[in-house]
């Protein structure tokens, strides 16, 4: 498993806020995503209706998930492919390695896949003598740097152009050291040349899957670069990695979800390559893999069914939630400490690795609600983060000071007279401390809290005062 640093979220976040390079990259990239999505949504008047349709398709599928998975598997096999059912990350790693061994594979090319990160596939392959080569441009540099993606659709979100140039010079030592990168396109051209050799040499190609289609037994990938297609077309064996909730019933269902995916993700009307793979090479075909395998992975998802987190399984991994999240925008993805960052990660990570390790993530939210309002699948992300906070509290994982303060608040809140008196005093004291200013930069006994935040000072009286005044005014 990828090393989990989620328990150190606070330290990770502090480091991220102080990292000038990261802050520069975040500042540059963020606005572009928001603007492009807003424009794409504005170009499609039916977008809101499609969100309801998307939610309903996934709800229908999840309510009949056993049926659709069995149908999918039967149709893969009808097309000559093989499905490998894997309960755990370990099962999935073993299944992939076994296919690679059977194929006598020395190198495998890889399309972008978050489930591959989740099961830590690359480390496992390397340890067993198979060299994995990431071919998505962002994943490629992440692999050169021995890092993990900081964003689910833009893995190198945290890097600046200077980083790319320096890493390419460091790693591509067969090229002239004095070559010049005038434009971003020169960096891209160098990666294209380098990876071409790898595509041609690979014995096995591994991709993820954006969707699985029960009706036809197809796996679907969505890319802009074409790397996923080269990965699955040129080698003799194609392995598609997919978690169980990727299945949808029909091509029409997938089509409706595809109308939401690119618009929510990159703000494109449609991605450049949307590719449906069904079985291996047919008689007479001049190209394409001879073998087609689907490694179907549960790794904790079936436990979410029937729980208050079931709706998270509607997620289509567009990244709109993190693109719009003020916390992600400040810390970047690595601070979250595991594979999935941002609001979707704050809900999914505790479900997959345990709330004991990832309990801080659902707390790293201002509950501004932007994530839910842009989610194409209408997943109630803030509400589910609240459920995780409850679970954390129930399991006594919340820090003692928080628990005792919550207990004190609860005791006061159950005594209306005392509560009114206390809030009145608090409002008066805060206004006195602020000396006419709108916000407090530091607070006695709460220096830790105000270190990174300003406390707004109440403008009027307490809620009860204002409510009473309103009633009188009627």
């Amino acid at each position, binding site marked *: 498993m990828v090393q989990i640093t989620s328990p150190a979220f606070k330290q990770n976040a502090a480091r991220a806020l102080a990292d000038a390079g990261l802050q520069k990259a975040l500042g540059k990239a963020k606005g*572009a995503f928001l603007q492009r999505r807003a424009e794409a949504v504005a170009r*499609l*008047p*039916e977008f809101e209706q499609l969100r309801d349709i998307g939610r309903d*398709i996934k709800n229908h599928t999840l309510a*009949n998930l*056993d049926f659709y*998975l069995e149908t999918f*598997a039967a149709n893969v096999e*009808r097309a000559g492919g093989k499905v490998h*059912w894997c*309960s755990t990350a370990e*099962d999935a790693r073993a299944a992939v390695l076994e296919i690679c061994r059977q194929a006598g594979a020395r190198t495998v090319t890889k399309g972008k896949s978050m489930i591959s990160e989740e099961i830590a596939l690359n480390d496992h392959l390397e340890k067993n003598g198979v060299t994995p080569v990431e071919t998505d*441009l962002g994943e490629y*540099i992440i692999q050169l740097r021995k890092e993990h993606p900081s964003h689910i659709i833009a893995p*190198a*979100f945290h*890097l*600046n*152009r200077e980083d*790319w140039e320096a890493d390419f010079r460091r790693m591509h030592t067969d090229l002239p050291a004095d070559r010049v990168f005038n434009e*971003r*396109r020169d960096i*891209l051209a160098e990666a294209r040349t380098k*990876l*071409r050799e790898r*595509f*041609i040499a690979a014995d096995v190609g591994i991709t993820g899957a954006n969707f699985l289609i*029960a009706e036809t037994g197809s796996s679907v990938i969505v890319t802009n*670069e*074409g*790397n996923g*297609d*080269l990965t699955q*077309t040129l080698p003799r064996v194609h392995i598609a990695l997919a978690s*169980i909730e990727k299945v949808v*019933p*029909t*091509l*029409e*269902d997938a*089509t409706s979800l595809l*109308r939401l995916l690119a618009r929510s993700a990159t703000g494109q*009307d*449609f991605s*450049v*390559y*949307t590719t449906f793979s*069904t*079985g*291996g090479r*047919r008689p*007479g*075909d001049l*190209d*394409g893999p001879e073998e087609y395998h689907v490694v179907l992975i*549960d790794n904790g998802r*079936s436990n*979410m069914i*029937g729980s208050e987190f079931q709706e998270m399984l509607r997620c289509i991994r567009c990244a709109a939630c993190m693109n719009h999240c003020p916390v992600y925008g400040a810390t970047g993805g690595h601070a979250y400490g595991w594979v999935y960052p941002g609001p979707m990660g704050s809900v999914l990570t505790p479900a997959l690795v345990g709330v004991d390790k990832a309990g801080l993530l659902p707390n790293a939210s201002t509950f501004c609600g932007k994530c839910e309002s842009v989610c194409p699948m209408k997943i109630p992300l803030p509400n589910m983060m609240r459920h995780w906070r409850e679970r954390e509290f129930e399991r006594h994982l919340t820090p003692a000071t928080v628990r005792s303060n919550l207990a004190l608040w609860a005791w006061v809140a159950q005594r209306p007279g005392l509560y009114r008196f206390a809030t009145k005093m608090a409002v008066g004291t805060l206004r006195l401390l602020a000396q006419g200013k709108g916000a407090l930069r530091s607070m006695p006994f709460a220096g830790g809290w105000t270190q990174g935040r300003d406390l707004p000072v109440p403008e009027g009286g307490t809620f009860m005062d204002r409510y009473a005044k309103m009633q009188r005014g009627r």
Partner: protein
Amino acid sequence: MSKDAILGAIRRGLKRGPLPADQRAMLEGRLATHPRHLIPQRSRLPRPEQVTLFVKNVEKEFGTVARVASAAEVPGAVADYLAQQNLAPRFVLAPNDELAALPWAEKPLLEFEARRAQPTDTVSVQHGFAAIAETGTLMLPSDPQRPTTLNLLAETEIVVLRASRIVGAYEEAWDRLRAERTDPVTGGFMPRNVMLVTGPSRSADIEQTLELGAHGPRRLHIVLVDDDPAALPEA
């Protein structure tokens, strides 16, 4: 067995056993009828405007289109495009009956081989199965006559597309595939691979700034043959 464990856990979560026969039959009915959902209005247009929308969307996504009046003009359009782009008049051609029947001999300077693409090919000429006006998207199903490598390996891909093959929405293109193709292995309609292609390859992984020509073609050019009298631009 992992399969039983996974299905069992799902059923426990759903608080039921395997689906009863009547419910299975209902779901099988849904698969067989594969109902459409909402189709956006933007492509619900008269034929001429549908073709115009397709061209407009291809160009928005950095593709180019040359419209010709008949199939006989395709070799000339290919030769012109290669000359304009300063490319050698050499390409790999999809081994497709329709493309083989074109009057290539009238442009003797064009050199080509009909086969799958190789990494050394710089230009490919592919056969378009269908196209979707909604987003300017080509549908390219794999087939002995339409190898997938032609969509991927060359820096320049030219697709020959008949205007009668342009539909409004993706769903209509799926219907054409369902109606016209029989797979030799499954007896169904899905081939090994269906690519939906919208413009040339690109990446925004460096500072979220778009650059064309990542791993697939840097240029995507469509030679559109006006074979559909109902779809001609209105005078």
